[in-house]
């Protein structure tokens, strides 16, 4: 059983079901609070009947700094999924999808062009999940991650920047079909 609601700071005392899982990163306190401070409606949690957090999504709304306005890598007003996680015991119930959909609703409400996220290029499960939700690869960020999740002999791994157009992007100007062929450097990502 679950409830979906906004994150509250005291949820940080109930994260063990999600964050003891090795696939979930634990951040410094300031990181969580920054999202809660700036985009409270985009930081949503799923809790179980005992108040334990069994899933959460952290998102933000932003555009690239004005100084990059004329760069080809400039990102217009959009929502970004920073982290989404579901506790092992709550998987296969659609919680990840529900949380992502809630963020998309907020993105539309805030007139965002698209929602984007970064995923490791070897995380096929996540890539399929997002593709099923309407996301597509927009570009490949070379050597974005400083380690490799499956091959310890490699010192880096590419990221896929995946996007889903929102209602504002009527003409689908901010997505492309051949995103896998568009590689950029990490320095082009702001």
């Amino acid at each position, binding site marked *: 059983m679950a409830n979906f609601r*906004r994150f509250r700071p005291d949820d*940080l005392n109930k*994260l*063990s079901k999600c964050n003891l899982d090795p696939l979930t990163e*634990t951040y410094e*306190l300031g990181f969580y609070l920054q999202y809660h*401070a700036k985009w*409270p409606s985009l930081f949503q949690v799923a809790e179980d009947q005992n108040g334990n957090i069994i899933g959460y999504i952290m998102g933000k709304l932003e555009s690239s700094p004005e100084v990059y306005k004329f760069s080809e890598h400039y990102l217009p007003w959009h929502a970004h999924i920073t982290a989404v996680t579901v506790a092992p015991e709550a998987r296969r119930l*659609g919680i990840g999808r529900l949380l992502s959909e809630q963020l998309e*609703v907020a993105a539309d409400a805030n007139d965002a062009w698209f929602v984007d996220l970064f995923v490791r290029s070897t995380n096929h499960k996540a890539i399929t999940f997002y593709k099923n939700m309407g996301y597509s690869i927009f570009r490949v960020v070379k050597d974005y991650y400083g380690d490799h999740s499956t091959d310890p002999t490699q010192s880096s791994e590419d990221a896929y920047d995946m996007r889903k157009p929102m209602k504002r992007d009527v003409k689908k100007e901010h997505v492309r079909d051949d995103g896998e062929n568009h590689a950029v450097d990490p320095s082009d990502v702001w």
Partner: protein
Amino acid sequence: MSFNDYGRMPLRSNVDMQLQTAFSDGNWNAVIRLADKRAKSLKDPYYEAIKICAESQLDGAVGKSSVLTAIDELVRKKTVPDIDTLELYEWAAWDFIGGEIEYADTLGPLRVRWAKANPKSPMAIQCLRSCLEYWDLVSAQQISTALDRAYVNSGDRRHMFWSITLTFLLSISPQCSESSRKVYSLLVLKQLERAAEVTENATKVDVNDRGLQTEEEVCLYYRVLLANGSKADFIKRVQCPKLGALALLEKGHKLLFWESLKALETWGEWDLIYDLCRRALRMGVDGVTTPFFVCDWLVWKRFATAASKSATPESALEEVQAILRQYFAMDIKTAAMYKKNLSLALLETTFQLPGRSQALDDGHKGMTPRVIQLGLFLQQYFDKLSAFEDVKAYVADLSFEEAKTLMEEILPKLLDGKSDKPQQFILKSFASKLRYLLTTCPQTLSRHPSVVDGKDQSEPYQCRLCSQLTSFPCRHCLKDIVMEAACTYQQISKDKDLISSIPRLDKDPRLDLAMVIGTSILKLARLRTKDHSLTRPPMRGVDAGLLLQATLILDTQLKETPKDNGLRLLLVQLHLLLGSASIAYQLWIPMDVKRTIQDALSPLFFDRISTLSPGLFHGSRPLMEPLRTHYRNTLRDACPLKIWEAFLSGSYTSILGMNEYDSTLRRSCTMMMSMVEESRATRVFGGKGDGEIADQQLLWKITDDTTLVHQTDYGSFPNLESHHGPPFQDFVRLGPGLSNERSHLSFLAEQFADLLGYKPPKEYKPAKTHEAALRDRTYTLERLSQLANSLTTFLHAPNTPTLLTGPETTYFSVASLLASALVTCLSTSRGDPSPKPLASATQSIRAALAALRSEFTHAVATQASPCLAMADMHTLSYLRDTALAVRHAAAFVLALHDKELARDRSGKSALHRDVVAEMKALEAVAGKAVAEARAHVQRTKETLGEAGWLDRLLELTFAGGGGEDMEKAVLGVVGGDMAEAEDWAGRLLESWREGVKGWVAVKWE
């Protein structure tokens, strides 16, 4: 460089390049010279300020304090200061704020003065930000009010809400004087009510009006209404057409609806909860909101509960079910989560409906609508990981007949219907968990005469499941559960097809079975089953063999399912109990408890760790460093982290939540635990660490009045227990969990130890030794009185006895008695009459120490086996600490006496001879106890070094009271032969040897 932790300080742009460069490079002597020159030639006081700031960066005390003098002068002047000068001074005084000066008394009011004079300047906002950074709410509130007034007609609404938010924060803060609190509370409420009226009465929304427009603004109003308004006003407003909970829900904002339900539940306003839930859920059906927007479990639960409490529960619950049916009938793709919520809601309404525990057929008492509905739910969800948690509370509430029907008819029927082998075994393991759950439910037992023929019966119940006479829980059922689960476990292990199918399942059924077997055996081992009191040593009266068997099974299971953190957490506790702390630590590390989650999770390993295994503090990395870093980083600033971002973003409810979280974190029991454990461990090895515990900056503001808060997260800890008894962590924890009382007592006891161990620095050579000695004595007496009072207050708090282990109670009591005794000793001179209270105090100290010694000796003598020599190091640790506290206290008094004799040959200032005699006697008693404790460690080391240990340990493990059949079953689960058990016993033994090595390194003097 012109940097400090507050950042780089830029000078005014019209300052010449030469001075700018010198300042930027941190070339302070050049800055002083140049600034002095410019001040004289330009007659601009700003240069004088630069000079003062540069002086403050030099090492000399006079220069350093010059900035404080300059600030003080500005405060006294009552004129509006120059903002650039103010910025400079604030930067230069950074190190002194919170110490030599208080921001709220100095720079805060100066900022207010400037902002009030220049409210429209962008620097006024900088003034507000500065006050917030130092959490000077009084000044921040005044500035925000000035800003609001200045921008009242500008259309910039954020100043209004900053002012309101800060007024509210101030009204609930200790910074607010009692006389102002009421005024501010009323003021903020009136401001928001006015804003609410503007919105409610407006015909159209004007983005510039001073009403409530965003979700954050509306929710801020309701938070204030809850805190400062009346219940009637809240109830009235929450039903309003524009600002009511449902109005916001319609706009896609759920927060207010959630918070309203919570408030209404607190007040017992069930009719209104019913109405709100009904209307909200209908909105989903009618397409007003997205279909499942409010379909949260808690909404359904409150709806069903409210219906059951209505005047006509039957019809109200019918309505709940009618809406549920509408949701079930909706022809849209629904997430599995919501489907499950709906199914559970149906289950909930069935349990709430009156008469649903009545049998459908008189001849079959157990077949009730509740049981049938449970069966229907399980049919769909038994194979899901969370199935047990979902139904646990419902099963525990069934009558005995219902539970029997569920176990003996419904579940077997479900099993018959499964042709898929993995599913069959999942169901079997699920049934094992339910069966264990029922042993924790009182309805499965009936009272049997507790006294028969004048004799107390050890088995005062008859189990209604197996009909045997038993104590609670039923040992016969537990043993049956173990045997059956072990059999199922072995069936799975032997079936290659089944094993290969496990990765495709939600959960490895062997994990559930191992957990059932492990917990059942722990109960059979009598681990806290007779007496739930956590104050008693957990290992007393425990069947060591069974305890070891349970640990063996669970340890072996972890090899199969290493990612299961619940199992890992349970094993951490078991190894801490067994004294194999190094294994516990190895189990703990892979969970990677770091950064933010440390506050809630660290107590699961670190609490009392210095009393169990001091050797761990001598590892390759400092044990407490990650915790220390976490608190240092997050609590460095006086204000809550990221609070300014929340103000800029207009996230007003976030501000309130962050303030509350910050306040709690600053009073965290875990933070205190980390400091105390480190301080204790340092003392144990005779070190001094980072100085005295009270000097730790994070503890500066902790006073006796501070309520310390514990937030330990047991969410991932396995718990198969019903709500009729304590959760499982209470069975396996070493003692009571963290508490305000224990945290304070530990802190005070460390301060007492610091006071006794204080040695002035070598450079300290006072000119007037007599006066200095008198001052020292006065200070010591004052500190001892404070500590004695504080320790006594916390020791005598009503709940304290239940919050400490026995040895902790003794230690803190002795510390308190010693502090009082020392006050008497130090204030009784040779010429005074004999101090009577001293004799009584020392008698109590001797008695307490003797009791602890005898407890420890008894524990050692009655130990189930010398194999468990490492299992009661907690008592040994406190025996050492108590004895050393006595010894140090006596030595402290005698040293003072000797010093006085040496200083004043007349002997007038020396201590009373009875005092000296009492202290010498105490010292002797304590010395004996220390020697005993030390000898025990040495003996343990020798014993553990003997040959043949592996056999002895295995013999003990398989000589538990469970009988041969159970030993065979256990062995079967761990692979069928002794190889696994031998390997495990070897690791356990190695861990004990490692542990005792740490104890051997402990200082006993």
